C-alpha cells in the first residue's frame, strides 16, 4: 500500500520519527498520508502514557535487608612495617635486643673491611696459588686424554697417515673438501623455497 511518496512508514521509521530522526523523504510521506498520521498520533500518545508511568520504589529499609545477606570481603590492605616496629620498640629488653643485632651486623662488616685492607699481600698470594693449582690440574687433564688416545689400537694407523708431507697435504685437502661439501649441503637444505609466480601477459 502506498500513498503519495512511497510506502507507509515501517515500525522502525515510526520509532525514528518519535526520536526526531526520520529522514526528510519519509517525513514528506508522513505529512500527506492520513493513515500514517493517525498511526503516528497513536504512537506518540502511547509514548506519552508510557513516559508518565509512576515511579516505584521499594521500602526504605530495602538496602539494609539486602546487606544483611551479602558477604562483604575483608578490605585488602598493604602489609605495613608499623606493627613490627612497634613490637621491637615495645620494651627496653626488645630495644636492647634490636640494638645488639644492629651492632653485631655493623661490627662484623667493619671487621671484614679492616682485615681485607691489612692483609692484601696474603690475599694476593692465595689468589696466585689458586691460579697455579688450576693450571696444573688442567694440564694434567690434557695429558691424561692424550695418553688415552695414544693407547688406542687404531692410533698407529691414524698416525701413519701423517708420516710424509704429501700425505699431510692430501689429508688436509680431503678434510677441506669434506668441509666445503658440508657447507654446500647445509645451504641447500636451509634455502627458502622459491615459487614460480604467474604474471599477466607472460
Amino acid at each position, binding site marked *: 500500500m502506498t500513498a503519495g511518496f512511497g510506502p507507509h512508514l515501517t515500525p*522502525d521509521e515510526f520509532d525514528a520519527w518519535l526520536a526526531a530522526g526520520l529522514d526528510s523523504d519519509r517525513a514528506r510521506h508522513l505529512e500527506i498520508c492520513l493513515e500514517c498520521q493517525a498511526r503516528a498520533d497513536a504512537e506518540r*500518545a502511547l509514548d506519552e502514557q508510557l*513516559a508518565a508511568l509512576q515511579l*516505584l*520504589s*521499594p521500602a526504605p529499609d*530495602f*538496602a539494609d535487608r539486602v546487606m544483611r545477606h551479602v558477604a*562483604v570481603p575483608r*578490605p585488602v590492605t598493604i602489609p605495613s612495617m608499623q606493627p613490627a616496629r612497634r613490637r621491637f620498640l615495645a620494651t627496653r629488653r626488645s630495644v636492647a635486643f634490636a640494638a645488639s643485632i644492629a651492632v653485631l651486623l655493623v661490627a662484623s662488616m667493619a671487621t671484614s673491611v679492616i682485615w681485607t685492607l691489612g692483609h692484601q699481600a696474603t690475599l694476593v698470594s692465595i689468589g696466585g696459588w689458586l691460579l697455579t693449582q688450576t693450571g696444573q690440574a688442567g694440564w694434567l687433564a690434557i695429558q691424561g686424554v692424550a695418553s688415552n688416545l695414544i693407547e688406542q689400537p687404531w692410533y698407529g694407523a691414524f698416525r701413519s697417515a701423517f708420516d710424509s708431507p704429501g700425505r699431510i697435504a692430501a689429508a688436509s685437502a680431503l678434510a677441506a673438501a669434506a668441509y666445503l661439501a658440508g657447507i654446500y649441503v647445509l645451504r641447500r637444505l636451509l634455502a627458502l623455497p622459491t615459487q614460480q609466480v604467474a604474471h599477466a601477459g607472460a
Partner: protein
Amino acid sequence: MAEGPEWARLTDQEVVLLARGGREAAYRELVRRYERPVFALLYRMVRDRELAEDLAQETFVKALNAIDSYRPEFKFSSWIFKIANNAAIDHLRRRELDTLSLDGSPHAETPEAMQATALQIGARQESPLDAVEAKELGGAIEAAIGRLRPEYRSCILLRHVEGRAYEEIAEILDLPLGTVKTYIHRARNELRVALAHLKE
C-alpha cells in the same frame, strides 16, 4: 578515599572495583543506584509489591555475592537487569505451572487429592492489600502492560520505562536484536489496541 558525595562522580565499574576491595559503602551505593529501577521492573512483571521486594532482594543478594564474576566490559545495569528479569521469568513460569491445571495437581493420585488441589475459579477475593496495589499500579496503561506476555512486558518496560537501548535489551534478555524489535513492535500494537477505547 571516596566517601559521601564523591560516589556520584564514580562510574558503576569504579564502584564495583571498590566493592571488590571490601568497601561496604560501595555495595550500598550499587543498591542505591539500582534498587528503584530493578524493583519497578519486577513489580510490573509480577504485580505484587511484597513478592517484587523479595525478588529484588534475591536479585541484589545474588549479584553482590557474585560481584567477582561480574565482567567490567559489560554494563553493570545490563548484568543486574538480566538477573532480575531471570528471577521474574522463573517466578512467572513456576506460577504458571502451579495454576495450569483446573483439575488439580498433576501429581495428585486420588480423586480426593485432585479435588483438593483443583483451581477454585472465582474463589479469590481482592484483599485490602490487593486494592492498594491495584491503585498503585492503577490506570489503563498499567493494566494493559500487565496483560502482555512476560517477554513482551520485559522488552517494553526496559525500553520505555527504563530507557534502555535496543542493543542493551538484547544483551539483558539474551535475544537477537531483531527479536527484541519485533517484541517491542508487537507489544506496542497490543497496547495501542488495548488503549484505543480511551480516545473514544
